[in-house]
């Protein structure tokens, strides 16, 4: 088991390096850099001025060298600029002194400066991730138990009235994307239009102090969409398990129906949806982009949108590194959990 996790971690790091390299190359394309130079310097820079600006700040080094520096496996640049100033990467583009480190990259914890927020990227990423973590936690708390209960209830008696009505609800909720359901929910529950103004239409205040009133709508908007999907998977798996022969064995052993469902069917029925639930994590990361923007909740997704629209290269890279790790770690957890659920799979 330990060896398995080690191997998986190795694969994860390799994947992370490949993915960040792709993002790094794309954000460091010349037109992007030119735009950066013009927003940082002045908008009427000549082409020569752009080139010297970029050269002085190390942007025009070979791509692999730049990537190595960003990663922190190559020494940061120290450039004697054409304007007479000496700039070092590790001294935030000022003249280096004896305290300046040789290496400064992701590995050393130097995530760079955000050009939009004028703050350390690591600080931004960690606070925003915390906020999104809070949102995701509550989404999962609502979505997973809700979906499993709906799925199990629908699947334990296939074709019954409960099954049909619950299935219809799940199909409708999955078929409605967040930007539709979010707008509808805001219109119904956050405006006086229908006389049901129970919740707030913005979740900005939830960043500091989340309560039922200001947090319910964003949570339920994301949860509804995923809930239908997981419920459908659980239902399919449950109906299959309920027709299995060992369920008949249990029934003819005299086990009562609730016990058949809880003790015999549930664990077997959860094996398939478990993978799907874990796959929901990465999907949630991208789902929150819409919902956070819609409800003005300044979390991870919102930061991503800001970074992308403002050409904030360092922030964008930081966000993608974190996303890659979140995705890979949830997949690792999913694989390990699968082993515990399904006794037929043994690692070692």
């Amino acid at each position, binding site marked *: 088991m330990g*060896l*398995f996790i080690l*191997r998986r971690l190795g694969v994860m790091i390799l994947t992370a390096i490949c993915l960040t390299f792709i993002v790094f190359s794309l954000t460091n394309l010349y037109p992007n850099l030119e735009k950066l130079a013009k927003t940082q310097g002045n908008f009427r820079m000549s082409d020569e001025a752009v080139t010297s600006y970029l050269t002085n700040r190390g942007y025009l080094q070979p791509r692999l060298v730049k990537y190595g520096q960003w990663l922190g496996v190559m020494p940061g640049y120290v450039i004697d600029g054409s304007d007479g100033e000496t700039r070092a990467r590790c001294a935030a583009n000022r003249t280096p002194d004896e305290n300046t480190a040789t290496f400064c990259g992701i590995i050393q914890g130097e995530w760079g400066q955000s050009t939009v927020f004028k703050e350390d990227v690591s600080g931004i990423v960690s606070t925003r991730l915390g906020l999104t973590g809070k949102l995701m936690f509550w989404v999962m708390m609502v979505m997973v138990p809700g979906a499993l209960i709906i799925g199990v209830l629908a699947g334990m008696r296939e*074709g019954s009235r409960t099954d049909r009505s619950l299935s219809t609800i799940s199909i409708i909720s999955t078929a409605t994307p967040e930007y539709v359901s979010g707008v509808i929910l805001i219109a119904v529950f956050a405006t006086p239009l229908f006389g049901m103004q129970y919740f707030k239409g913005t979740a900005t205040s939830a960043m500091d102090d989340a309560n039922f009133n200001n947090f319910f709508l964003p949570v339920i908007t994301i949860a509804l969409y995923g809930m239908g999907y997981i419920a459908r998977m659980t239902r399919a798996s449950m109906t299959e398990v309920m027709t*299995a*022969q*060992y369920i*008949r*064995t*249990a*029934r*003819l*052993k*005299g*086990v*009562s129906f609730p016990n058949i469902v809880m*003790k*015999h069917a549930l*664990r*077997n029925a959860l*094996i398939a949806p478990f993978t799907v639930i874990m796959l929901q994590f990465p999907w949630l990361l991208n789902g929150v982009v819409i919902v956070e923007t819609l409800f003005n909740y300044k979390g991870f997704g919102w930061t991503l949108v800001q970074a992308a629209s403002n050409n904030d290269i360092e922030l964008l890279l930081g966000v993608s590194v974190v996303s890659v790790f979140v995705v890979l770690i949830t997949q690792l957890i999913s694989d390990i959990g699968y082993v515990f*659920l*399904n*006794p*037929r799979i043994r*690692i*070692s």
Partner: protein
Amino acid sequence: MDYDLRNDAYDGPILEIDKLSISFFTRLREIPAVMDFSAKIQPGEALGIVGESGCGKSTVALGVMQDLGVNGRIVGGSIKFKGRDLNTMTQEELRDIRGSQIAMIYQEPMASLNPAMRIGKQLMEVPMIHEGVSEKEAYERALEVVTDVKLPDPKRMLNSFPHQLSGGQQQRIVIAMALMSKPSLLILDEPTTALDVTVEAAVVELVKDLGKKYGTSMLFISHNLGLVLETCDRICVMYSGEAVERGSIEGVFDNMQHPYTQALFRSIPLPGADKNARPLIAIPGNFPLPHERPQGCNFGPRCDYFEAGRCDQGYIPMGDAGDDHESRCLRFQEIDWNAPIAVGAQTEKPEPGRVVLKMDNLKKYYEVAASALFGGNSKKVVKANETLSFEARESETLAIVGESGCGKSTFAKVLMGLETATDGEILLDNKSIGNVPIEDRDTKTIADVQMVFQNPFDTLNPSMTVGRQIMRALEIFKIGNNDNDRRERMLQLLDLVKLPRAFADRMPRQLSGGQKQRVGIARAFAGDARIVVADEPVSALDVSVQAAVTDLLMEIQREHKTTLLFISHDLSIVRYLSDRVMVMYLGHVVELGTTDQVFSPPYHPYTEALLSAVPIADTKIKKKHIVLEGDIPSAMNPPSGCPFQTRCNWKDKAGRTLCETEVPPVRMLAEGHQVKCHLSDVDLAEMEPVIEIAAE
């Protein structure tokens, strides 16, 4: 409740089924599955229900359990368990009886155990639900019962998951589960169909012993007449939803009173049947579908004694044939049951021709990575075939016999070219083909070596007409110049396998199992195959159809001088149709000889056990009783020395250390009879025949 069901004072019949009718309801119509079925089981008695698939025998069992699903319903009659009608019980009362008073053992042990629950927990559940005992006491009880069903290392067993056990062990666990609360009635639904013969023999033995020990009554459902003879006191033969004959085992086996029972017995290969001198008599026609049953007697259209105007009029009641023996036939008193069997067309035994296929020291090893997940370096070698050497001649039938994992299917794959040999040679007409994979074989070789598969239900493309599939084979074998040619040839092939030409345009799902297998045979013979490997071609078919399909194979073989390699685990049918027999165990050929040589002493100890394990449906047969301990070892981890030494009953005679250390050499006992065993000639000569026909 009138009285306590656990009360042992009750001394009437345990189960009394009276005029039971069960129907399944679909949107279109009501389909009667069981009609007018009556049976009685006394305490300690075992009743066997025999019939072909679809005759309603399993429905009866589920009816007793009151578990017919959403569509099934009991439409008439009563099922009384210890005097109380199960039909009128509430769900709670039923739940109380299920598992504690009536327990069931199922056909597929793997499917009927919960894969995600430890064995111990599944067993302990039973007394905990029904008797409310503590977990500790339940564990003690489970341990005791697991010891009772003769499983090694009971503590480890209780802590395992079902997939960690072999098929035979799983079935023992299912039996243990049924016995956990000492039920009064045990329902066994084809309990050994999925098991190997030697394992089957041990399981049957166990069930019999435990039945005696606990005084349990049994309802034994099977399609195998021999098995019912060995286990039951009374028998009930079912045909198309009705019980057609009922009586004691001796009464029905020796003095049958219904044409269907008689036809059934004539279509199974009993010792004495011979493909040339005394061929089997297949039952003509097909089993009627539930909604297409004929007027009057259901068996009428297939019956030799059918009398128009009498047998096809209205309901036919059970008639009393005396001595607790009943028959659902209007004419049973008129028929002369002792009339000699009209012998079918006798044929000359064809002389085997020249050698067409020769195996020379053929070996097939597989390399398996020890842990697939990590692709570790430790590789294990599975020796699937170990030095196979034999010859097969023109128009000869060579049977390859052995249980699962003995390497018979691997051998077929190598011969077909799906795998290549690790070592040694396969010579087809003196041309080596052992190392030529099927992609590189020329059309002629492929057409020459063809295969008939075990399961006709899976081997036909469900979305292509039967005719198209045969024509496709013809195209591949480059036979015929155009579609018209091939169509003509395809129709001839349908004639050859005795299917109506109209079947060419049918889809496989419109065909019965036997008909599908005929299509499979037609496809194999499309390119005038000279060697046909038949891999258990009839084991998925019903008894009455088996005879017809076997006969067809024999007939085609006689006409085409085909070499037939008949792979099977069923020794009765092997004895009936093969000229020579090769017995395999764990990749080794342990015995090879003509059918007479293999079926009479001296035997290899494994052959001896195999012969003893096969149930024979004849009361006149006396069998020596040999039960093998344990399971077949895994080919991944074969025992040292002789492959059979772990289960051999003769090991002490041959010298333990010798058997455990050295692989025995191949010895010639007589012309063409070879055995791989350490036993001395004296010991071999002392062997007694396993099967003896008692003097009449």
